[in-house]
């Protein structure tokens, strides 16, 4: 579960994120949308413990990011915009290293790496150096490092960038499978993307950020009644109306 309470991030006078609150329940896949510079990445970086918020707090799987930061970070799998990989390492070696960093117990590390490799379709390249892999494979390695410790909370920043259509379908299926409680464990997923059909394919709920604020938070079902997601997105992020009255579109959505 993710609970964000009044998150804000200011850099001097520049307000990157302001008063962002939301809760994501286990089993939920939330699409995190917004124009470039809307504060999506900053919000995700706050949730993952990379940046501290100037204001507000967040609770990840029951662990407060301030009072229990290590446990909160242990509960998260994070794929940043650029996959955080070491080009000089092999896929196997890299995932083993990440498993160590993420506190996977020694005896379970090999199984954890094998599972991540299998899930992300990396079996053919597991002994290759990451620097020698194509962009798509590198993206999958990035995804594998985010799930190697089987975290209850996952945050993906544009996970399907650079993949071919078949890989995209596989990764989407994987994300859906991770979120569903099919193996008895419901996980929480936040997915940031610019590909709107992707959101419609995977997510049941959408949060749209605009100018550092949460401009809309509604189930996909309700948005469908108002037209295509693209229209809703354009309307929400268009005028200054949405900036000064961030609540308005939400009420509209729930009407």
């Amino acid at each position, binding site marked *: 579960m993710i609970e964000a309470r009044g998150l804000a991030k200011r850099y001097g006078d520049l307000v990157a994120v302001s008063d962002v609150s939301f809760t994501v329940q286990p089993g939920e896949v939330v699409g995190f949308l917004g124009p470039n510079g809307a504060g999506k990445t900053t919000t995700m970086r706050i949730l993952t413990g990379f940046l501290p918020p100037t204001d507000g707090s967040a609770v990840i799987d029951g662990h407060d990011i301030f009072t229990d930061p290590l446990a909160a*970070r242990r509960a998260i799998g994070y794929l940043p915009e650029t996959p955080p990989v070491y080009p*000089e390492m092999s896929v196997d070696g890299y995932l083993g290293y990440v498993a160590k960093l993420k506190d996977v117990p020694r005896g379970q590390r090999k199984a954890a790496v094998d599972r991540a490799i299998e899930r992300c379709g990396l079996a053919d390249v597991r002994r290759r150096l990451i620097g020698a892999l194509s962009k798509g494979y590198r993206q999958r390695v990035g995804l594998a490092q985010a799930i190697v410790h089987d975290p209850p909370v996952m945050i993906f920043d544009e996970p399907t960038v650079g993949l071919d259509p078949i890989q995209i379908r596989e990764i989407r299926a994987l994300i859906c499978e991770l979120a569903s409680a099919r193996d008895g464990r419901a996980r929480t997923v936040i997915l940031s993307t610019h590909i709107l059909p992707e959101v419609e394919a995977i997510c049941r709920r959408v949060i749209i950020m605009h100018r550092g604020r949460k401009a809309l938070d509604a189930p996909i079902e309700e948005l469908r009644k108002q037209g295509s997601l693209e229209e809703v997105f354009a309307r929400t992020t268009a005028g200054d109306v949405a900036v000064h009255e961030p609540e308005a579109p939400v009420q509209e959505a729930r009407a």
Partner: protein
Amino acid sequence: MRHVGAIAGRELASLFVSPVAYTVLTLFAVLAGFFFLSNVLQFQAYVERMQAFQAMEQLEGLNLNDHVIAPFLQTMSVVLLFLIPGITMGLFAAEKANGTQELLLTSPITVWELVLGKFLAAFAFVLILVALLAVFPAILLLYGNPELGKIGAGLLAMVLIGSVYASIGAFASSLTSNQLTAFFVAFVLLLILLMLGFLAELGAAGGAVNSEGVSGVLRWLSTAEHFESMLMGLVDSKDLVYFGVMSAAFLVLTKAAVESVRWR
């Protein structure tokens, strides 16, 4: 602290799959061989000249420790000034440039574990360099009988100064995402530190630093002051404290610099 080993191990392994480690090791071995040979030849020429003059007193005063090994290690400590920044420049800068810093800072590890892991990797490399150096005095053992204790003190001095250099190199690397910048920042810091004692003397002579306290502090901060006496075989606990304090101080600064990502 259980992640320190993992971080240090990865860092060392990545040094050895890149050309950096091999370039540095080769350069170090070649330079060591060159300077060692030149010290030995100089020593030999000096001995021959003294024998020709029948200068028994001077001959008595000559020994391998003070006239071959100590000057050799002294020269190699200057070589470390160039090479250790080459090893440490990537420690943090490469993580930032790579985007892997995001992995590290969102993992359940503490900043101390990260800093210590990085430092230990560089320190392990220093140990490899000093082990390479140890070969040369060992050659002398075959042909003469230099004092083992003095050799040990000299090698210990190299390890300790290497530790300070590694710590400063790590600090420089934590300031930037550009490895070249990290290299030069480290190099300049090390150079200043080495010359502080010299600077104090210059200042005293010119009247700029006329307080005994200031020049004393400058001299205490200088690596040269502590290094040279140990090279001559004098292992003083005051010098050991100096090396420990300097290494630790720059690790604390490194930790602050790594954490500063979060303050901004």
